[in-house]
């Protein structure tokens, strides 16, 4: 298929994803929903911190935790947005077989469908960061953020998250729809292993090793550095040793590795699903 046909398919899938994401209610309610979710998720950590420190939020550690948690919204949402499409289209709308019958690439379709979640996540992250800056003394300055570094790291990091979403989509192809919690469970594992809300140093050695193999670890750290600058370098000894350039390089390298792996895994899962006739199965109970 020519490039513009791929683009057309991507655009259509994006439109479809947006409709499914948003047309269940009027725009105002959708906007309220999009605000409440990220703020509530951030507030869990805030209250955990407040209970222990008895009210002090203007610290390096708090900024480290809060900003990491805010950017983490991308991880959970994009993983879900891409992988859930398989179960939803296969078992709910029964359309997956027709997508496979058409000449569009499944990656293009999954990516397009996931774009809505990506867009909503971006807004959620922005809201969470603004909330933190305005009410919780998180030292975020509009003119102090390293925007080129931020967007560069964001793009590479999103590629890694999308790659993981593709892996999960492959898993969904060959498993039953028990509860739709696959992506959430994986996101939970990232929460633990990628130094999202605490320095990686806190983990035991073997867990640190796993964390250091994951692109998201470097991505979260890069995003924190871009947003908060050198203020938080001292929080994690392990990652603090890396300069911005080295961080970006490691992020790029691990992401490339993950993208390759995700492609190979998805292809295998797809073959398996076709062999076992799973592309149009229903497994909900």
């Amino acid at each position, binding site marked *: 298929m020519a490039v513009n046909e791929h683009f057309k398919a991507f655009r259509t899938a994006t439109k479809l994803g947006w409709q499914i994401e948003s047309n*269940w*209610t009027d725009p105002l309610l959708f906007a309220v*929903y999009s605000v*409440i*979710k990220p703020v*509530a*998720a951030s*507030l*869990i*950590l805030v*209250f*955990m*911190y*407040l*209970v*222990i*420190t008895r009210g002090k939020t203007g610290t390096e*550690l708090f900024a480290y*935790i809060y900003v990491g948690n805010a950017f983490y919204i991308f991880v959970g949402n994009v993983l879900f947005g891409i992988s859930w499409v398989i179960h939803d289209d296969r*078992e*709910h*709308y029964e359309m997956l077989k027709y997508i496979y019958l058409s000449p569009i690439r499944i990656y293009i379709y999954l990516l397009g469908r996931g774009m809505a979640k990506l867009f909503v996540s971006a807004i959620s992250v922005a809201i969470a960061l603004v909330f933190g800056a305005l009410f919780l003394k998180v030292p975020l300055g509009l003119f102090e953020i390293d925007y080129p570094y931020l967007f560069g790291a964001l793009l590479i990091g999103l590629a890694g998250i999308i790659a993981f979403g593709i892996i999960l989509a492959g*898993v969904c192809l060959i*498993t*039953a729809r*028990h*509860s*739709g*919690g*696959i992506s*959430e*469970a*994986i*996101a*939970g*594992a990232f*929460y*633990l*292993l990628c130094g*999202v*809300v*605490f*320095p990686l140093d*806190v*983990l035991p050695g073997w867990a640190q090793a796993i964390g250091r193999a994951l692109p998201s670890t470097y991505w979260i750290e890069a995003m924190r550095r871009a947003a908060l600058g050198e203020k938080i370098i001292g929080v994690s000894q392990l990652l603090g040793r890396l300069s911005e350039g080295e961080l970006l390089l490691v992020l790029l390298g691990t992401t490339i590795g993950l993208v390759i792996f995700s492609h190979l895994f998805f292809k295998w899962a797809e073959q398996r699903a076709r062999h076992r006739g799973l592309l149009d199965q*229903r*497994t*909900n*109970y």
Partner: protein
Amino acid sequence: MRASALSTNLRAIWARAYVRVVGANRELSWLFFDTFLPLLGTAAYVFIYKAMQAPPEFTGFVILGGAMTAYWMNVLWNMASQFYWEKEMGQLELFLIAPISPMAILLGMALGGMFMTTVRAGAVLILGSLIFGVKFTVQQPLMLALIFFLTMAALYGLGMLFASLFMLYGREAWHLSNLLQEPVYLLSGFYFPVRGLGFWVAAAASLIPLTLGLDGIRQLAFGGRGWGFIPPEWELAILALLSIAFISFARRALRLMEELGKREGRLTLRWQ
């Protein structure tokens, strides 16, 4: 001889629970994704407290909260939204034309789902306690069991209430559940003692059965009431009232929603 309504409903509960149990055993991927991985998510909160140098009992709080998450997720996604999925699959109308109460179907789903849920909760509790060295000093085990039981009764009553909304409002209800997930983690004090929210907020949050249930279990499981919101005896009484209230509301709401659905012709309408 015509079966009595009670025996028919009991059979329906058993039959629907059977589907859940059999389904879980036929495809075991959930053991990894719904049991092992959530343990990692819970562990993340343990490490957050370690990074903050929190007192050691907070590890126990988090482990208990992580275990109870399983029940909340089961109520929200495997029970409340299930009528929505049944409608999408074309099963709901077959349930509704049978001479059984929708509550029997929901109870069957809940009991069947308990199997998976309890495995998940148990894994988090046992493995989490072993890995992080949590020590329980259970006082009044009977009271603890009663609080747990009443929390489940009230929680599943709440789930039935949500199920009535899901039956009719489909996607809106799905998004509502999605929306409720994190706020409930926050307001119920899944990962921190709920009294940290302040008295009035915690009091309002007590409408969610897990708030008082978790608080009571923590107080009784760790042998101290330093972090408790209100005495466990009060929590037991309130949970008993909540159980009765939610189950009664659920019964009415299910009837109301069914009537509304029949009037508006939406009981069998897919993809709303």
